[in-house]
């Protein structure tokens, strides 16, 4: 019964849309014998692109392309949406997988000579698709609006500006305004989600149409390019040897390869995308922009061309390489597709591929040493202060503001400074601004600068943290301790080895009332300003400040 209904619906559709013929045309594609695993890469790419479209649409449900909200909305996706981090991981690593699959696809086409006559246009549309994929990667990179995004885009637009004659025009179109900002973000977003997808769909359709028109090139064992075996008519389906139908034989290989790639992608994405960096900040000094790995080769190339020659590294060489690749079908016109008889084109491609690989490796290795990662006393003290009620009254889960910590800081340094010196500025009349002194604000700023970079405070004993907090509030204006970094004042003595000179009891007497110990002392008395607990932890901690190897660090 049910079967009857399906058949009748099928017949109804067949009479009106001719779908059975269309399906046959799609699935019974004749493939030359010997077409194997190497020929699954196109389908893998198609699957990865489709997945990228789905994850992209899902991300766009939440993402807001404005400088005020882009970073926060991406953070929201990462931290607050169910499976949001996984979703962003899929989209992020999906891009990487697509670049790898596209590169392998190009290698396969070159090795098999599949670009040769009559498939020149298939090759050119493929190269155009490669550029579209890279444009996707570039435009997508800006959207999270973090430091990495901002500075990579600064470099990208400045490279575009180097183009002879039209450089400034192109850079202006990319920027949308005099500087990188709100207008740039909306432009790149529109390119990423509307313009590029439209171009991609058109090019993929053209690429597939051309692929079907000339058939799969297949292995190089046959003489000629195989086109003579192929009737140009679309209707005639040959599936007798030396051909076999796409479905289900090659389709099973394609699906297997795609499933393997998707499994790898899921494994990569399970820990989410690399964490967001601090929000874009044009004033951040010494930020070290690094591009995504597939642009490292170009990044490295730029280092070799000084001064006026930079246009050579940025535009001329990449342009020539692209031109050479585009011309491969016209360079490679010998009688055979056998790689052994195509030395010149393969040598050209090999040199290009090896150079790109070597540059990428050099760019990968040529990374700066990580900045000093040890937390200073001021930073640790600031972290302790940030967990005080003065901050957490508002900055708490479910409070009027987000909790403060690594990965949650979205404001730039100037804003934070203003907020700390005058919390009223943000929420006038909402509450009494918390009391704080200048040193506390400096410590908080030091901590927040650290937290903006996504660093977590080191795991220290509670007593140490308390002591460092007291030190950061009362002592650091005049004293320094070596392990606290270059931070601290020089009016008082360096306390790096104070534990070797005085025991805690003596330190307590001195700190409580210096003049009682030495009538000439210039240091103010802290006996009444420190609580009993604070005094005890401070002198115990100071007593532990000794020269290495026993420097008192836990």
């Amino acid at each position: 019964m049910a079967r009857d209904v399906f058949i009748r619906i099928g017949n109804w559709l067949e009479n009106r849309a001719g779908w059975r013929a269309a399906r046959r045309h799609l699935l019974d594609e004749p493939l030359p014998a010997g077409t194997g695993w190497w020929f699954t890469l196109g389908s893998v790419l198609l699957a990865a692109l489709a997945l990228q479209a789905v994850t992209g649409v899902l991300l766009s449900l939440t993402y807001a392309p404005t400088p005020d909200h882009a970073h926060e909305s991406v953070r929201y996706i990462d931290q607050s949406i169910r499976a949001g981090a996984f979703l962003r991981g899929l989209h992020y690593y999906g891009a990487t997988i697509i670049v790898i699959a596209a590169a392998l696809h190009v290698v396969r086409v070159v090795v098999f000579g599949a670009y040769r006559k009559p498939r020149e246009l298939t090759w050119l549309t493929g190269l155009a698709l490669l550029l579209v994929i890279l444009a996707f990667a570039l435009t997508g990179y800006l959207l999270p609006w973090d430091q990495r995004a901002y500075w990579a885009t600064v470099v990208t637009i400045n490279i575009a500006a180097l183009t002879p004659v039209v450089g400034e025009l192109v850079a202006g179109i990319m920027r949308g305004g005099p500087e990188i900002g709100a207008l740039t973000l909306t432009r790149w977003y529109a390119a990423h989600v509307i313009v590029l997808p439209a171009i991609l769909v058109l090019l993929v359709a053209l690429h597939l149409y051309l692929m079907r028109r000339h058939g799969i090139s297949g292995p190089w064992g046959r003489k000629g390019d195989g086109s003579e075996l192929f009737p140009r008519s679309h209707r005639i389906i040959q599936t007798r040897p030396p051909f076999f139908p796409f479905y289900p034989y090659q389709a099973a290989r394609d699906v297997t390869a795609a499933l393997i790639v998707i499994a790898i992608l899921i494994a990569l994405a399970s820990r989410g995308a690399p964490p967001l960096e601090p929000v874009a900040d044009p004033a951040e000094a010494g930020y070290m922009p690094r591009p995504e790995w597939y642009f490292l080769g170009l990044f490295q190339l730029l280092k070799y061309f000084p001064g006026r020659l930079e246009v050579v590294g940025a535009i001329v060489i990449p342009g020539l390489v692209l031109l050479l690749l585009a011309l491969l079908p016209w360079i490679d016109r010998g009688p055979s597709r056998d790689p052994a008889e195509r030395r010149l084109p393969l040598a050209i491609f090999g040199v290009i591929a090896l150079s790109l690989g070597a540059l990428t490796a050099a760019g990968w290795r040529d990374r700066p040493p990580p900045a000093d990662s040890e937390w200073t006393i001021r930073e640790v003290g600031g972290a302790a202060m940030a967990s005080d009620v003065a901050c957490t009254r508002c900055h708490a889960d479910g409070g009027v503001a987000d909790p403060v910590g690594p990965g949650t800081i979205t404001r730039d340094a100037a804003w934070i400074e203003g907020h700390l010196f005058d919390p009223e500025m943000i929420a006038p009349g909402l509450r009494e601004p918390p009391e704080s002194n200048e040193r506390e604000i400096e410590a908080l700023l030091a901590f927040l600068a650290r937290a903006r970079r996504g660093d977590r405070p080191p795991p220290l004993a509670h007593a140490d943290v308390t002591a460092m907090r007291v030190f950061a509030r009362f002592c650091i204006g005049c004293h320094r301790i070596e392990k606290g970094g270059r931070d601290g004042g020089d009016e008082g003595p360096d306390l790096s080895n104070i534990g070797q000179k005085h025991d805690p009891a003596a330190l307590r007497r001195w700190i409580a009332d210096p003049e009682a110990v030495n009538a000439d002392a210039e240091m103010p008395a802290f006996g009444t300003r420190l609580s009993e607990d604070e005094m005890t932890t401070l002198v115990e901690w100071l007593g532990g400040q000794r020269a290495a190897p026993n420097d008192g660090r836990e």
Partner: protein
Amino acid sequence: MSSDPLASRRRLLSWFVRGALTTAGAAVAALAGLIAVPAASVRARRWTRAARFSDLEPNVPTPVIVTTARRDGWHRARRPQVIFLTVTRDDQVRALSATCTHLGCRVSWNAPADRFECPCHRGVYDRDGRVVSGPPPAPLPPVAARVDFARDEVHVEI
């Protein structure tokens, strides 16, 4: 040449269709160009307070962040810029932009090595902003600066 009225009619209509499509295409391209190419905008430079003169050390480039209000399309942005201020021997202040002339990254002052360094592509400048090595095509751009000794303020024109 044909005097066949049907043929000339067909030729006329065909010209009409092609002409209309070409015009429509050109109009769409012109509109896209009009929207996509941003109008040139020149922002007038303004003198802005950058630092307290007494905070600067003689002969040491000190980075200061100077924030100016900018219109960024519909977005009113406060744009921070980093300027290096150096007190010269005659108690004047020399100001240098901290933007690398290569590809626009932010240079920083390496005091022990006595030079500015760009983290992106290894551009190096001396304390006067002249290129020492690496890819930068031009010295660090100077910024006009003046000192108001009465108020202990350094102003820069950005």
